[in-house]
């Protein structure tokens, strides 16, 4: 095991190291986000504008339908409350003090020196959430967390650890966003996720940023025997640049991972979104499904599956719509089989909406923009359930607007 000093040395060496993909941000242009943040007892006490910002990323202020709520504002915790006594939710710093064993989970999946963003997060001693579902616990309602940037021109650093123990089941909704008026900022987020033997984790992440925000999440998920992980990622609003390539390591027999990605690239947005699965145990399965739209921005849909053990099965699906000239769709599926008895497949298609589909609906009396809206809505429907009604409405309105803009 590495000592703290050597991690620090590695991070210091990597602080200028560019990431493999995405725009190379100069982190010196951003101030470190503050740790002095207002404390919120009850999310209902927040003003309406703040509440709306939370709602737009799936975070309810009336937490009746949530097991727990966590709000991180800039670089500190603003709110943390827990209703289900059978699970744990607190800040990572608090958790590291409470549980001596937790240090063995910290910076174990994500390397501090992967790039300047991981290095920066380590060197800033980033805080974030810690969620643990102890063995056998099945939480009936999701835990919700929100990571929000409250000031412009700052870099937020976040470090989360999520542990679902043996045969436990947990749903998590995470919303990442900027406070209204924060147009330019940088979000760096480290997430280390552990799903132990027979555990189930459904993880839904909604991003809603502003036009000049850079986002660099670094996520690795480790799955043991028979564990299951479903990741839903939704991004429908403008952003400057997101580069994310979460990796699921299927390390136990029969483990399963599924990634759903739904994203819209507006003019000026560059979305470099991938997901990677390493099949490191026999009989493991995975599905990577990506549906992206450009209305003028750039989408790079990566997907990579590496099969290292027999009887693995994986399917990768990248579908991209180009609704307007000026937009780019780049699908980069990668399949790698290192043993004989595996089945990896992929399906990729990029281009415009078929005219025939639009006219079929127009022949039923729909206007062209309503027809496009309906097709786009169908295109993005990959069966993500459990989103709050208010968010579903916001998604609907955004899609209707995309339909209008596309005609």
């Amino acid at each position, binding site marked *: 095991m590495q000592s703290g000093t050597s991690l620090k040395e590695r991070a210091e060496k990597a602080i200028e190291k560019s990431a493999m993909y995405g725009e190379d941000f100069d982190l010196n242009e951003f101030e470190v986000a503050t740790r002095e943040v207002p404390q919120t007892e009850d999310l209902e006490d927040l003003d309406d504008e703040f509440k709306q910002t939370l709602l737009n990323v799936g975070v309810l202020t009336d937490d009746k339908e949530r097991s727990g709520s966590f709000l991180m504002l800039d670089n500190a915790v603003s709110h943390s409350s827990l209703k289900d006594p059978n699970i744990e939710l607190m800040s990572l710093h608090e958790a590291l003090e409470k549980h001596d064993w937790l240090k063995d989970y910290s910076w174990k999946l994500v390397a501090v020196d992967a790039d300047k963003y991981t290095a920066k997060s380590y060197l800033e001693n980033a805080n974030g959430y810690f969620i643990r579902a102890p063995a056998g616990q099945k939480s009936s309602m999701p835990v919700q967390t929100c990571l929000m940037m409250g000031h412009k021109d700052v870099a937020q650093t976040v470090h989360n650890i999520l542990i679902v123990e043996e045969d436990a089941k947990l749903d998590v909704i995470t919303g990442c966003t900027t406070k209204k008026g924060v147009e330019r900022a940088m979000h760096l987020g480290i997430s280390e996720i552990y799903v132990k033997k027979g555990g189930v984790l459904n993880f839904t992440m909604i991003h809603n940023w502003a036009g000049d925000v850079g986002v660099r999440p670094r996520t690795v998920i480790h799955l043991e025997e028979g564990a299951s992980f479903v990741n839903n990622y939704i991004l429908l609003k403008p952003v400057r640049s997101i580069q994310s390539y979460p990796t699921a390591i299927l390390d136990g027999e029969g483990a399963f991972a599924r990634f759903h990605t739904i994203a819209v690239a507006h003019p000026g947005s560059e979305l470099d979104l991938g997901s990677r699965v390493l099949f490191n145990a026999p009989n493991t399965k995975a599905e990577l499904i990506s549906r992206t739209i450009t209305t003028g921005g750039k989408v790079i849909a990566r997907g990579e599956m590496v099969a290292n053990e027999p009887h693995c099965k994986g399917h990768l699906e990248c579908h991209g719509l180009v609704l307007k000239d000026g937009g780019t769709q780049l699908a980069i599926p990668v399949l790698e089989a290192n043993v004989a008895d595996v089945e990896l497949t992929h399906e990729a298609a990029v281009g415009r909406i*078929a*005219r025939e589909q639009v*006219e079929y*609906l*127009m*022949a*039923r009396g729909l206007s062209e923009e*309503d027809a496009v809206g*309906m097709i786009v809505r*169908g295109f993005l429907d990959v069966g993500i359930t459990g989103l709050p009604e208010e968010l579903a409405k916001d998604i609907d309105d955004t899609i209707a607007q995309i339909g209008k803009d596309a005609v």
Partner: protein
Amino acid sequence: MLEIKDLTVEIGGRKILNKVNLKVEQGSTTVLFGPNGAGKSALLMTLMGFSGYDIVGGQILFKGEDITHLSVNERAERGLGIMTQRPPNLTGVKLKDLVKVISNDHSLDTEAASKKLDMDRFMDRDVNVGFSGGEIKRSELLQLSAQNPCLYLLDEPESGVDLVSIEEIGTTIDELLSSRSKCSVDHHKRGNSALIITHTGQVLDYVEPDVGYILCNGTVMCRGNPREMLKEIKAQGYQECIECKVARL
């Protein structure tokens, strides 16, 4: 109701229809016969305004209005409704949502209508995705019931359908044509009009036709009693008809 005058149509620069003249009277059911490749489907697609069918001459009048250059949805708004042979798959679009959107301003009892067409099991399915031949036709008819057009353009409603489904489809078409129409005028025997393409004539077991046309090589060869025509075609094929036209010229 519908008047087609000297309609000439090209697909990708190739002439498909040549000076077609045809009329559908209000409340009448007009049948279009013709061999494969005659241009029957192209005529229906052109009437609905689908892209790829370039009108290079002639005119389409609907209820007295020139609709030759109107968009697809403008034609639908005026009362044209179509059942094509191979409608596209709409991945992610649920049949129930589509029917709801189509029947927006009407009072279709969707549940009853879908049950009647044996489509209630399909309401949560993506439109046309994995549907069999008969299921596609029934789904189209359900959509048309919601749309309630004045003129039904039906492209071979019996093709690719099993015998039981044919009865269901034929009866439904007859009901739709006989039903009270937003375009009906009292003294007509039916409210709705139809232009139906049929190869086999099977649909005529359920729907009473008024007028028949034969289309060959992109042009109308003759107009007449549809049942007589069908008898002739079954006995002699289309060659007789072509020769007849040539003789008349």
